[in-house]
């Protein structure tokens, strides 16, 4: 979170450190990429360190890693019926990636990758594409049965099919926007409070700055909740792709 006085949306700006192209594709290294690398490094190194020498009776670090894994595994098994175990690695990666990106952004002066629509959109579209591909793979042309709800009178179909189609296509949009909006709003609120704190007279500065402490605690909780919601909804979409309609 940037503490400059240039406004609460300044710290969402993408800063390119090194211009890079792969053919026609722009793959410039920006603060988004750097903070995602930091997230990947922190998550993989810390988890590897915690679980490097696993013991039957776990220490605090191992226990933390196991609790995190157990939580994601339980949610995956609960929401993807019968085949949950297969998707645990994917969901664990998704959860730790989003959670890491959310928490990295809470370090003062850091950048939040999940406050970027392109990042949350990529993750959401990735999951949506995966679920859609899975549904095609499992059901073939039966894929389209999902857009025709059972028991609906034929006269209602011209109305119901577009509604179902829109609702289906809205999934990645809502998934991406929810995470993006939460992270943006939280960091904007933090930025506003910090700016207010710095701009206030010296005897009133404690009030907004005190609130930033409370807000950061709230943001930590939101970081967990948003990662959880993203993973649970991803599981629901995958489960929906696996079951017969």
């Amino acid at each position, binding site marked *: 979170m940037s503490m400059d006085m240039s406004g609460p949306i300044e710290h969402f700006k*993408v800063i390119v450190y090194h211009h890079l192209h792969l053919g026609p594709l722009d793959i410039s290294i920006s603060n988004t990429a750097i903070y995602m*690398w930091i997230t990947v490094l922190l998550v993989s190194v810390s988890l590897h360190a915690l679980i490097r020498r696993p013991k039957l009776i776990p220490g605090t670090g191992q226990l933390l890693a196991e609790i995190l894994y*157990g939580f994601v595994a339980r949610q995956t098994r609960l929401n993807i019926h019968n085949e949950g175990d297969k998707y645990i690695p994917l969901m664990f990666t998704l959860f730790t990636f989003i959670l890491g990106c959310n928490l990295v952004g809470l370090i003062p002066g850091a950048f939040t990758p999940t406050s970027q629509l392109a990042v949350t959109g990529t993750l959401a579209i990735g999951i949506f594409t995966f679920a859609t591909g899975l549904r095609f793979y499992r059901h073939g042309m039966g894929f389209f049965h999902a857009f025709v709800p059972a028991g609906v009178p034929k006269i209602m179909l011209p109305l119901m099919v577009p509604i179902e189609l829109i609702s289906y296509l809205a999934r990645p949009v809502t998934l991406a926007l929810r995470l993006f909006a939460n992270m943006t709003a939280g960091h904007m609120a933090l930025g506003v409070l910090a700016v207010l704190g710095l701009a206030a007279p010296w005897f009133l500065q404690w009030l907004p700055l005190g609130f930033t402490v409370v807000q950061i605690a709230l943001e930590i909780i939101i970081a967990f909740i948003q990662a959880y919601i993203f993973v649970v909804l991803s599981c629901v979409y995958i489960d929906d792709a696996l079951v017969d309609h």
Partner: protein
Amino acid sequence: MPQFDTTFFSSQIFWTITSFIVLFVALDRYVLPHIAAILKKRTQLIENEIEEAHKKREEAETIKSEYTARLADIDQETKKMFAESEKRMSAQHNQMMDEWKTEMERRKRTFLEEAEVTRQQAIRDIRSQSAELVATATEQIIHQRVDKAEAQKALDESITELEKYKKN
């Protein structure tokens, strides 16, 4: 808002996908197998322990039922032994009582026989001594000598008379 600026979308999408894949590979190769293995091992251990506990419990139940059955057998055996012992003691007691009674009968008979012999001997002794006494007394009274055979005869007659008198 800067997030809607599409200029950086391609690089952001590229690095999001790359970072996610790198994290997925790293976790799938270096973290998740360790966690899954240790959790599986622990689950296996707990299941084994539970199974072992079930076995021990079943063994204990078997031992308990065997013990109860043995106790019941012992109880039965004890009762049987007591009954046999009581029966044997009773038989022994009866036998001893019979033997004692027989012995007492024999002793009584012997005693009576001996008493009869003694009485007969005493009677004979008394008769004999009385005859001499009668002879001596008669001799002194009548100054006539009576031999022992006559005295004996007189005494026997007297005794016979006395017995007759006694019977009448």
